[in-house]
């Protein structure tokens, strides 16, 4: 196992830049939009897996 203190790749990773402060709101807006689109799409698409499993499932007598 090589000595990690001498690993030059680690030296390159020491300096962590701060992400721009306004980036978080942009990302959260993107995520909210993505969720909205996914949720809306799920209203108009057929869940084949669920439909098939429901069709073949035997109902309990109770």
């Amino acid at each position, binding site marked *: 196992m090589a000595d990690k203190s001498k690993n*030059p790749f680690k030296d390159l990773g020491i300096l962590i830049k701060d992400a721009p402060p306004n980036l978080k709101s942009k990302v*959260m807006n*993107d995520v*909210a939009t993505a969720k909205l689109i996914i949720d809306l799409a799920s209203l108009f698409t057929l869940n084949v897996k669920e439909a098939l499993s429901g069709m073949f499932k035997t109902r309990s007598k109770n």
Partner: protein
Amino acid sequence: MVTILKNLILVLIGDRYKSDLTKDNPYRGLSDEELVKTIIKTNNTLLFGIIYDRYANKVYTKCSGFSWSDDEAADLTQDVFLTIYVKMGSFKGNSKFSSWVYALTYNFCVNYVNRNKARKMSEKSEKLDANDHGMTFDVEDKSLFQMRSDKLKTVLEQIAPEDKAILLLKYQDDVPIKELCAILDIGESAVKMRLKRAKARLIETYNANS
């Protein structure tokens, strides 16, 4: 109508986001893996803010390594986080979540760089041909660690982005080979071969520059 609805939801989410995440949130103590499971289970996008807080700076730094300006890096970071959210369901827990995030970041950045076809052709045409004909040689980690970090930075800019990505994942982020297999969805021998070739190209470029 859809735009109004979207804006309304964004406003509501924005307010909730401010009120919830600035307080002592019980979810903040959860590990990444637990948090991901909760986000998938509850479909709560607000919790994604915690994931963002944990990885924003690291992802931004990695994106900076593949871009020419801060604005470009910020745009890349924004797209990477959206991809993380959309693909979160495909995280199976075969590797650490951090490794998965870094691999996804590098993959996204490599695709971004390679989109520029002219650059792709000029950079790859000769080097790849030479190495694909069995001219790769074994490079020990020891000789890799003897490189100077300032020069290594320059050399990393010159090699193919795919090689840069796998080398950084292995030697900077300490992702084990087994995790690389799971993340990249290739066999152990394929990962070792990619690493071997990447190391050989790195050393070749490093020596050519000295």
